[in-house]
């Protein structure tokens, strides 16, 4: 993240995308629709929220750009986000991330690996975080692939923790990546270029 100042909107770039802090004006119909989309919400392990504009604006307002970031993902040269990444800086140098690609035309385009790769650099190199982790629905096989492809380790299975919209129970998986593991992977490999 270039010249990040705590409390101020943030921006960072990848090869194909840029990320910037979302504000109240970003609570568009498109953004709101992601929160009511069953497939999209599977990525967060949540059922559809049924939010309106007020709920969406309230959600965005919770992110302070100090310890909580809500960054829209925008293809370069565009002003319409295709998803977002949320970052939560926790105690003991541990950070949690969630990525949602709301625009399904971008599924399978490698967005998650490219965007999270940039965020990992920010968290590990920039903020010297010790660990980054994320939680995923055990039936979200695409997301699980992305964690594994990026070197995360499945550290735990919370059995039948999630209740899917169809009434079935799903396991929740916790994936973690340590700073040293990430640094070693940066030495061994070029940044991930495989599509995700």
């Amino acid at each position: 993240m270039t010249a990040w100042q705590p409390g101020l909107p943030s921006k960072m770039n990848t090869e194909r995308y840029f990320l910037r802090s979302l504000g109240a004006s970003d609570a568009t119909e498109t953004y709101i629709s992601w929160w009511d989309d069953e497939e999209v919400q599977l990525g967060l392990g949540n059922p559809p929220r049924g939010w309106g504009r007020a709920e969406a604006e309230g959600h965005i307002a919770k992110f302070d750009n100090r310890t909580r970031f809500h960054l829209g993902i925008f293809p370069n040269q565009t002003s319409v986000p295709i998803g977002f990444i949320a970052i939560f800086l926790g105690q003991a140098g541990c950070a949690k991330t969630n990525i949602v690609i709301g625009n399904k035309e971008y599924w399978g385009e490698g967005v998650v690996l490219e965007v999270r790769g940039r965020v990992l650099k920010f968290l590990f190199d920039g903020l010297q975080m010790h660990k980054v982790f994320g939680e995923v629905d055990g039936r979200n096989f695409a997301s699980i692939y992305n964690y594994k492809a990026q070197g995360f380790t499945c550290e735990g299975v919370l059995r039948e923790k999630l209740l899917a919209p169809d009434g079935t129970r799903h396991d929740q998986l916790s994936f973690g990546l340590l700073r040293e593991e990430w640094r070693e992977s940066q030495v061994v490999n070029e940044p991930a270029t495989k599509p995700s």
Partner: protein
Amino acid sequence: MNATPADTSQARELLAQVLNISVDELEPDAAIDRTERWDSLAHLNLILALETHLGRPLDTTTMLEIESLTDIANLLAR
């Protein structure tokens, strides 16, 4: 458990199908970290295809083990 040749053939067919390539194009050491077409959507389709083939959902532990053609063959041989 090692896969039998028949199981490997079945695994190759299944993986080639989800990667949308011919069986002949599939490298014998195909794996999640070295096969270009094995991306997130392919992985999703692979797990679903395995579940359809086996007629049951994969438990989480088994699903997490699927990272290579060999893993698929071993699963089908169980």
